[in-house]
C-alpha cells in the first residue's frame, strides 16, 4: 500500500481536491452574489441539480458539451427566476421559497430524466470536456498536474471567481449590490432599483450554481442521475459563510472542504479495515467545526432574507 505522503499520493490528493471543489466553488459564488444582494439562497442545491439536468439534456440532444453548458445555465437561470419572482417581487419567505425550489427541482428532474433518457439513463455516456495539459507547465511536479492538467471548466471556475470579485469590488454596480444587501432603503433613495439589482444577482447566481451541476455531468460522470447534487449546495452554503461572503474567501473555503473530501476518499482506500462511514463524516465534521468558531463570528449582509418594501402608511 502506498504511503499517504509520497509525492504521487500528494499530487493525487490535491488534484482530486480541486476537482471535488469545482461544483462547490460555482455554487458558493452563486451564494455570495445572491446573498450580497440581500436574497438568502438556500436553493443552491436545486440550482446545481437543474444545471446538471440541463447539461445532460443539452449534451444529449446536440451531442456536444458546449450546448450542454448553455442549456444547463439556462435551466439554472430558470430556477433562479422562480426565487426572484417569489422572493423579491412577492416577498414570500426566502427560506421557504428556497426549500420549495430544491424539492421541486429534485422531483421534476427525476421525472424528466425518465422521459428524456429512458432506460439508458444509467448506461449513457454523454459527450464531455477532456482534461488538457498546458505544454511545459503541466510537467512541473505536483503543481503541474494539479493546476495545469485540468479541463476547461476548472479554468472557467477560476475566471468566475476573479470576475465576481472584480464585479463586487471594482465596479459601480458591484458597489450597488453590496449596498442593497446591507441597506436597501439607501439604494432606493439613491435612485437605483432594488428589485432590478436583486433580480440580476439572483438570476446570475442561478447560472453560476448551474455551472457546478454542468461540471458534474460534463466533466465527471457523463450522465445524469437523480439527486446527483447530493448535498453540495448545502456545503457551498457553509462555504459562503466561512468565506465571509467574499468570492475569494468562498473559493478558499471550498478548497478546504474539497481537500478533506479527497483526503477521506484516500483514507477509505488506505484503511479498508476501518468502516468507510467513519471517513465519510470527515468533510462534514470539518465544515461544522469551521463554522462553530475556528474563525470568529461571521456577519452576514444586514438585509439578507428580508423583503424590501418602501415605507408606506
Amino acid at each position, binding site marked *: 500500500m502506498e504511503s499517504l505522503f509520497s509525492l504521487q499520493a500528494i499530487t493525487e490528493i490535491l488534484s482530486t481536491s480541486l476537482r471535488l471543489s469545482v461544483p462547490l466553488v460555482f455554487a458558493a459564488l452563486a451564494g455570495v452574489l445572491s446573498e450580497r444582494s440581500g436574497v438568502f439562497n438556500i436553493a443552491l442545491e436545486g440550482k446545481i441539480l437543474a444545471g446538471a439536468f440541463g447539461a445532460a439534456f443539452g449534451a444529449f440532444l446536440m451531442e456536444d458539451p458546449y450546448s450542454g453548458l448553455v442549456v444547463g445555465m439556462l435551466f439554472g437561470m430558470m430556477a433562479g427566476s422562480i426565487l426572484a419572482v417569489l422572493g423579491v417581487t412577492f416577498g414570500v419567505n426566502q427560506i421557504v421559497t428556497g426549500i420549495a425550489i430544491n424539492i421541486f427541482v429534485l422531483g421534476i428532474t427525476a421525472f424528466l430524466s425518465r422521459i428524456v433518457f429512458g432506460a439508458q439513463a444509467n448506461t449513457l455516456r454523454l459527450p464531455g470536456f477532456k482534461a488538457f495539459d498546458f505544454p511545459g507547465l503541466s510537467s512541473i511536479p505536483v503543481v503541474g498536474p494539479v493546476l495545469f492538467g485540468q479541463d476547461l471548466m476548472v479554468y472557467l471556475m477560476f475566471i468566475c471567481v476573479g470576475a465576481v470579485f472584480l464585479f463586487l469590488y*471594482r*465596479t*459601480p454596480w*458591484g*458597489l*450597488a449590490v*453590496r*449596498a442593497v444587501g*446591507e*441597506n436597501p*432603503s*439607501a*439604494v*432606493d*433613495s*439613491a*435612485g*437605483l432599483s432594488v428589485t432590478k439589482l436583486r433580480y440580476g444577482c439572483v438570476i446570475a447566481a442561478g447560472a453560476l450554481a448551474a455551472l457546478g451541476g454542468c461540471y458534474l455531468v460534463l466533466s465527471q460522470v457523463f450522465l445524469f442521475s437523480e439527486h446527483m447534487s447530493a448535498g453540495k449546495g448545502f456545503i457551498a452554503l457553509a462555504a459562503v459563510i466561512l468565506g465571509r461572503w467574499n468570492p475569494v474567501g468562498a473559493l478558499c473555503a471550498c478548497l478546504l472542504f474539497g481537500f478533506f473530501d479527497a483526503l477521506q476518499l484516500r483514507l477509505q482506500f488506505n484503511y479498508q479495515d476501518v468502516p468507510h462511514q467513519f471517513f465519510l463524516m470527515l468533510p462534514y465534521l470539518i465544515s461544522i467545526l469551521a463554522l462553530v468558531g475556528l474563525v470568529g463570528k461571521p456577519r452576514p449582509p*444586514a438585509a439578507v432574507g428580508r423583503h424590501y418594501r*418602501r415605507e*408606506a*402608511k
Partner: protein
Amino acid sequence: MSAYKLSLEGISKSFGAVTANDRVTLRVRPGTVHAVLGENGAGKSTLMNVLYGLYRPDEGRILIDGRDVVIDSPRAALAAGIGMVHQHFMLVGQLTVTENIVLGMKGQGLKLDLASHRRKIAKLSQSFGFEIDPTADVMKLPIGMQQRVEILKLIYQNAEILILDEPTSVLTPNETGPFFELLERLKSAGKTILFITHKLEEVMAIADDVTVMQGGKVKASLAKSETDPASLARTMVGRDVLFQVKRSAHSTGEPVLRLADVSANNARGLKALDRVTFEIRAGEVFGIAGVDGNGQAELAEVISGLRPVESGRIHVSDTDVTQASISDRARRFGVAYVPEDRHRDGLVLDESVAQNMILRTYNRRPFARFGFFDRSAIRDHAERLASAFAVRLQSVDQEVRYLSGGNQQKVILARELEGAPRVLVVAQPTKGLDVGAIEFVQQQILAQRDRGVAVLYISTELEHLLDVCDRVGVLFRGKLMDTIGSDDATPERVGLLMAGVAA
C-alpha cells in the same frame, strides 16, 4: 426666471380615507432656509415624500425655477436637483464615506474610480468645513458626522434643493450650533434648504421663511421676521401652549430611592456606572443630565432591575432591593419605569393598546382568571386608562404601532403610573415628541411629584430638565459629577459639567 426656486402648488395626497395633504401650497425662494413647521402627523413627511418622488400626489403641480417638473421616483428628484436627508439616514454602515457618496451616481462607466472620487470629495468636504475623512467606514463615525456625509453626498451629486427631515433630532445641544453654521455656509453657496421640524426655537434660529402645517393643511406661510414663537406655536398646535411648565411650591418628604456606591457594566462588559450615590425624596424630581452614552441608560436599567449591579446597594424606602427581580421591584416596591427606547423596551408594537396596558399585570386578576384572559376586563381597563390619559386612538384593539409617538408614550405612562408607584424612573421621555405631547408628559411627571413620588428624570434635553427638576445631577463617563439645585442650575454651569469640567 421665477421668483421661487421651488413651488408646490395645490398638492393633495390621501391614503385610503385619511387625507395626509390637502391642497398644500409651498413656495420657496432661492438661496433661503425655508422651515416647514408642524406637529407629528401634520403631513410634513408626506409632502416631502411627494417632493422626493416616493409618493405620487393625487393632484397638484411641482415647479422648479418656474417650470413644471414630473417627479415620480427618487432618481427623477435627484435629476431635478432635489436631494433629501431622511430622519433615519440612508447610509450603508459597512461601506466607506466615499462609497456611500458615489452609490447610485450616474455616468461612472464600467470601472469604479474610487481614488479620483475620494480626492474630489475630500476637497469638497474641506471647502465647506465638513472635516470628513472620505476613507472612514460610515458606521464608525459619530451620528453627527454621518449626517454631514448625507449632506455632502447631496452636494457632490449637485443637488440645488436640500430637504432636511428633522435634522437636529439626532444632534446633541452642543452640535446644533455648528450644524446651523454649516447650513449658513450652504446657503451662501446658493443652496436652497427645506428644513422640516417641530421645534420652534430652530425656526427662529435658522429659517428665513416658515410654512406652518396642521392636519394636512397649510395654516400660515410667512417670513420669520413677521412672526414670534408664541404665535407660531399657536398656529401649529391650534391653541395656546404653556412654555414654562409651572412648578408649584411644595415640600419634600423622606428619602425614598437611595443609591449607594452603585457600579455597573454596559452590554459590552465595560464600566458604565462608577460608584454613583444619590437619594431622591418623596415629592422630588431629580434630573440626570449628560451627553448621551455617559451611563444614563445603565442607570435607568439598574434601578428598574434590567441590569445587575457590580457593587453598591439600591434601597427603596428602607428595603434593600439590589437583588430584587424586575417584577418585584415594580409590584412590591412600586418602581415604575418609562424606558428610553419606547419601541424596543416599552411596548410590543404588534399587540393592541389594551394588551400593552396590561404588560405588568397580565397574569393577575381581574385580567386573568384561571389562566385565561378576561377580555372584557382588559378592554374596560384600557378604555379607562386611554380616556384618563387622553390617548388619541380609534379603538383599544388597535395595534400600538399605528399610534403617533406622543400617544405611544401616553400608553406607557398610563400603564406605569396606574399602580400608584413610589419611584418613577423616566428616561428621555420627550425624545421625538412634539410640543403638545412634551407638555403633557411633563405635566404628568409633575403630577406624580405632587402625589409624593420620587422621580428620576433622565434627559439629554437640558431645557426640559431645568423646567421640571428640583435638583439636577450630571453623569460624565459613569460618574455623578455634581448635584445642583435647579435655581442655581444655569445651562452654562450644567454644560460645563456635561463636558467633564468639575465646578
